[in-house]
């Protein structure tokens, strides 16, 4: 296989910060009808469906490929976790409920030429968004702690 130089965007603009409600909704477990279907592609063993029932589950799956491994040396024991990223963007908007994240994936990830390049950039987009989630959650937890402290003091 001849490799090509990886082209990914240098900067990705920050997304509009999510609300507490959006974060709660986006991190919930989803029903059967709202699952995302991924596949693990395993040379020799074949391909198998992986049903994903939450955003965190999907992120672990999507970013779980060991791209640095000697991918297809005969006999190699590795796998590529693959998700149709068009479907992933739709799923983010319709099932997870994070439209800004879906738009960011559509704008910065889908136009890239290869799945490998897409996943590298997706990792950055998801990382930014998860930082925002954590920030919102952190503020909420801090407020809760402060409220509890005030209550105790009272």
């Amino acid at each position, binding site marked *: 296989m001849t490799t090509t130089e990886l082209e990914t965007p240098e900067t990705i603009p920050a997304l509009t910060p999510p609300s507490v409600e959006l974060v709660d909704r986006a991190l919930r477990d989803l029903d*059967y009808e709202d699952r995302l279907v991924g*596949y693990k592609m395993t040379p020799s063993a074949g391909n198998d469906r992986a049903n994903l029932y939450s955003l965190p589950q999907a992120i672990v*799956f999507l970013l*779980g490929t060991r791209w640095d491994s000697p991918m297809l*040396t*005969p006999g190699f024991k590795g796998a*590529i976790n693959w998700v149709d990223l068009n479907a992933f963007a739709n799923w983010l908007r319709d099932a997870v409920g994070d439209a800004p994240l879906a738009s960011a994936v559509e704008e910065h990830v889908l136009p890239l030429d290869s799945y490998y390049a897409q996943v590298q950039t997706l990792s950055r987009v998801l990382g930014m968004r998860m930082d925002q989630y954590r920030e919102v959650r952190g503020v909420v937890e801090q407020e809760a702690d402060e409220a509890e402290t005030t209550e105790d003091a009272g």
Partner: protein
Amino acid sequence: MSGGYTGKILRINLTDKSVSTLDTKDYEEYGGGHGMGSAIFWDLCEDKTVSGFDPGNVITIMSSPLSGTLTPAASGRTEVQGIGVQGYPTEWFTRSNFGGRFCGQMKFAGWDGIVVEGAADKPVWVDIRDDDVQIKDAEGLWGLDTTEVQEEIWRIVQGGTSEWRSLGGGRDSGRTTQRPAVLTIGRAGETMSRTAALIHDAGNGAGQGGFGGVFGSKNLKAISVIGTGGVEVADPAALMDARLWANQYAVAGSIADDDFAPQSMGSMFGGNPASGAAGYAPADQPKAPMGCLGCHKNCRARFQSAASNGSSCVDYFFYHVYDQAAHGGYTQAILDAADLLQRYGINSYQVEAMIIWLNHLYQEGVLGKGKEIDTELDFTKLGEVSFVEQLLDMIAEKYDIGEDLHEGIALAAVKWGRYEQDTKTGILPIQAWGYVQHYDARTEVEWGYGSLVGDRDINEHDFNTLVYWAPSIASLFGAQPACSAPLLAEIMEEKLTPYNDPMMMDYSDEGIYSESMAKLVAWHRHYTRYYKQSLAFCDWAYGDFFNAFGPDNRGLTGEGEDKFFNAVTGQSQTFEEGMEKGRKIWNLDRAIWILQGRERDQEVFTDYNYEVGAVPGYTTYEVPYVVPAFENGEWTYKSVSGRMLDRDKVEDWKTKFYTLEGWDTSTGWPTRATLEDLGLGHVADTLEEAGKLGA
């Protein structure tokens, strides 16, 4: 007798506890392994329509003339045949195969194969030490897992020492430092599960076919063999020359070590000789490569924890996605889960599909505690080793949903009223004959067609890496595979004798129904029946068509196989002659299936293959499938993801295939002319008596 053969085959009747021999020479025309096994089955199995669990079922465990020799990636594989119990709706005469060193020890003990007939009235094991064959009480072994039973037999036979020992009483009776090679079943086999495997050493299993359950039905816990002899090679110098010659196709080629991985992709014979240790595992887990007898590739791994040792392919992979989901990465759970699978002796391919399907039903709300399919199986533990242990125990001991899954997923789906529905949507991806899809018939059609006109998931990767993996993975990187589509067509035209048709590589929407595709499937059936399953060239090294290290990027297939065979046997067989032997064996198998009831109209895929295409919102129904195609006068690689098969066109393709094979196009039965041309006149006579000879 040619070199490579010991000259005799061990025949064991468990019903009357008798031991006798067959003369290998009577079956030498079939080469070894599968060919001999089919011919022996034809001769000895009086009623080929019985259940695989019937004492009348005859099981053959065969070596090849190359077993135990220096032939690379052909020395350590053993072929198992008989009426399987996994097939649905018919328990076809079928095959499985395992690696390791069993066939080598069998040869060193003086046996080209073992035939098992009848059934014991209580659990037994067979103790083979050179010519000394004893059927022994297995009371102390019954109930042990596959690791425990092997260790116990080693203790019994070996007495706990690994030093030089004599097997006989006299000074010249033969000595060895080796441990006995043991083929055994676990609890799943003992309880006659249709999804039980035969296990040998660590990580070698014959899973498909349910032969573990067949052993259980015969009350046969294990066969142990150790020998002190060797294999007589007709021309040792030629064999050594052939092995050194073959090095040019392996990693010893011109490409630097740190650069070989991507370029060797598709080079089946070549690659990293330690590839088994190149994959992932728990990050802190040291591991070493491990291989079968005489192999140059070592595609398996040995782990420091000892768990999962030698596991390869799907038994290593069946649980890693759940481990990753539960723990955020790969942990010891992968290895421990593989270890449990081996110890219970259960078919990993069935379990992998089973977990996906069961989880689907659980999430759908159909299966679970108090649900329509009521179970205590704890899905909150999915990803933990405890989940695998609970599931495997249910299957092996036949309780909870395990009572149904014990019969395999096809029959479980039938019992639960899910078969039609779930094979229509594809959430239960049974492709044909009760076997789960390995590669997609809608895209990589040679795999699907081969399974359809045969008896099981073929599990033969000859074209798979070149026509599917290489271009598909390259596309994920935005790159081109090392073997371009025009070069692939050119190489296959040269290599695929006797058809030599470049259009065999055309996987376009039209090409998959063509006469050329019929030729590709026929070539594949004939090649694998002889070279891979009878001479036991490993599926993970042959056929070698494109090879990054070979001269002009050509692999050794077409030249290498016979170079080794002739050196060992002293014969002068050509590749064309070998392919013709494969055609003969393939037709003999076909005759057995016809006696079992095979008709043309049975050879259809399950519904999802014809009805499920790209899902709304998805660009494809599955993974990227990029394959070679000849379109607009040019060879190219093309994505065919989302393609469905056309029922009428598949029927047209079957007619082309039957015609090419010399079979009656209305029934799929071989004609007398075809069988007599292959020296199978006696088979034609039997089919005619049964009213099943093609017109």
